């Protein structure tokens, strides 16, 4: 049995460990938009090198970056088990990912095998280090329950994404084995639905009831959702990679359909909980969550429409819109909202600890609203929503794609500024104390 002495309920990592991840992430969002504005025609093909490169700039540089940083903060709280060697691991994770991502993206965009190899190698190193440290922390955790299970499955999905991605990238290195396009679909499914989707679910079980004071997720749903999705992804992989037979031909659409249903159920259950919340104030974090869940529903609907009406699915813009709704709409909206809770609170917490060491009577520590002013956050929310909506309807109206990217670049520049000035406030307060 886990004893009291081995239990850590504190060990908050120093502020400089998570903050670089959080401030750099939206900058990668801006870079992604600029790369597409400058480097690609409106609504490029999903197989165009520019788009593949830019997509990696976005998904590695933004959601992955934030999640790597946030897990260092979250594991001590929800798992009671900090990441081993937190400082060194944090620094290495950030350095490898922040250097590797732009190199890999440039290599993919400009078809430079050396950059794909070098950048990809750095990214692979960062991801492997993350997987290893997260698994050590989860294995040591005295806690159980749906969140820990979802985190386990998310990390295993990341491993699957990495293996598929590395073998796809080796194709770009000219190693010359055939790259069936179903491999790309599997890479996307494990990365987006498995890693991103299950991690968000694990976090949602904690933060949705906690910050908005909603009822808890229904017990059966919380317990079954992540394993169910994980099993579907496994079945899909078997169907797509196994020897062709009538059995596997039927399995692939079935597993995809059940995954889509599960995602829709997650969105609906969460929206319903939020509608029953006790805390009536709708803060910017709640609004971001709702936008994210509605975008997830829209993505599922668009996918279902394309499946029933193949003429739509053959449009080159269709997979692009799916990815836009899922990554920018679902994942980034929710991440964006969480950043407005996490960073101001961390600044407050660390100021509190600093003040405990060097008391300064009569000087109040700034509140979370003074660290990032809500009107500033709402302005950025407006820009994000504009970008999301314009990009979301660019399928029928392609002329809205460029304005969507410009709004997205602006939204993330403002987000970086909002977060960076919070750190500035921290430094200022330290100097004053």
């Amino acid at each position: 049995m886990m004893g009291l002495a081995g239990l850590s309920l504190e060990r908050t990592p120093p502020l400089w460990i998570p903050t670089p991840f959080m401030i750099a992430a939206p900058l990668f969002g801006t870079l992604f938009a600029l790369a597409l504005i400058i480097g690609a025609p409106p609504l490029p093909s999903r197989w165009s090198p520019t788009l593949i490169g830019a997509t990696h700039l976005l998904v590695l540089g933004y959601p992955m970056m934030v999640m790597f940083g946030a897990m260092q903060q979250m594991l001590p709280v929800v798992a009671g088990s900090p990441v081993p060697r937190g400082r060194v691991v944090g620094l290495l994770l950030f350095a490898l990912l922040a250097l590797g991502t732009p190199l890999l993206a440039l290599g993919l965009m400009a078809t430079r095998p050396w950059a794909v190899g070098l950048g990809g190698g750095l990214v692979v190193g960062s991801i492997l280090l993350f997987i290893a440290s997260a698994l050590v922390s989860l294995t040591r955790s005295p806690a159980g329950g749906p969140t820990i299970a979802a985190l386990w499955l998310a990390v295993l999905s990341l491993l699957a994404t990495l293996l598929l991605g590395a073998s796809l990238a080796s194709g770009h290195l000219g190693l010359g084995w055939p790259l069936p396009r179903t491999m790309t679909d599997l890479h996307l499914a494990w990365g987006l639905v498995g890693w991103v989707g299950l991690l968000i679910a694990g976090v949602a079980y904690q933060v949705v009831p906690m910050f908005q004071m909603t009822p808890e997720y229904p017990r059966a749903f919380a317990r079954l959702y992540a394993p169910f999705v994980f099993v579907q992804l496994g079945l899909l992989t078997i169907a797509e990679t196994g020897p062709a037979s009538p059995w596997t031909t039927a399995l692939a659409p079935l597993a995809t359909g059940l995954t889509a249903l599960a995602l829709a159920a997650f969105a609906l259950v969460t929206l319903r909980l939020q509608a029953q919340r006790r805390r009536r104030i709708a803060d910017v974090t709640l609004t971001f969550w709702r936008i994210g869940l509605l975008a997830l529903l829209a993505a599922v609907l668009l996918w279902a429409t394309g499946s029933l009406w193949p003429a739509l699915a053959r449009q080159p813009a269709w997979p692009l819109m799916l990815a836009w709704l899922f990554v920018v709409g679902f994942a980034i909206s929710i991440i964006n909202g969480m950043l407005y809770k996490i960073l101001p609170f961390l600044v407050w917490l660390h100021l509190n600890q600093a003040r405990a060491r060097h008391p300064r009577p009569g000087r109040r520590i700034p509140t979370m609203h003074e660290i990032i002013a809500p009107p500033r956050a709402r302005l950025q929310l407006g820009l994000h929503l504009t970008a999301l909506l314009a990009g979301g309807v660019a399928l029928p109206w392609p002329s809205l794609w460029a304005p969507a990217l410009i709004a997205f670049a602006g939204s993330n520049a403002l987000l970086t500024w909002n977060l960076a000035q919070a750190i500035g406030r921290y430094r200022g307060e330290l100097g004053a104390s």
Partner: protein
Amino acid sequence: MTTIETFFTTDHRACDHRLADLEAAVAADEWADAEARLARFEQDLERHLGREEEILFPAIEAANGGTLGPTEVMRREHAQMRALLGEARAAVEGRDQGTGLGLLETLMTLIQLHNVKEEQILYPLADRCLAPQRAALLDQVQAFAR
């Protein structure tokens, strides 16, 4: 059967709801209401903190050979809550809505993160290491008033 985990978790939710009600009154500029709700929240929160500091934590510490570690961290976070609550009282009395909402948001976040650690880790641990004396301890906790 009531466990330490279920009893104290229910107590958390009751305090959370009081805090949400207080925040709603401040947001609506209903200051007389806000003062009444603040008093109720203070009373519930203090009773909860007292139940832990005076009964539960000493029992956990004794059962673990006097180890302070995690309970000490919890006590420190209680002190941070009390400091924020004091500032929030001043803001409510001074009818300062902006500062009040900022303080309540900060207090709420602090309390929620604190609750996660207790509900998912500390209480289950207490249920295991205090199993023999649990019924007596819960009687004592229920009788506690402050």
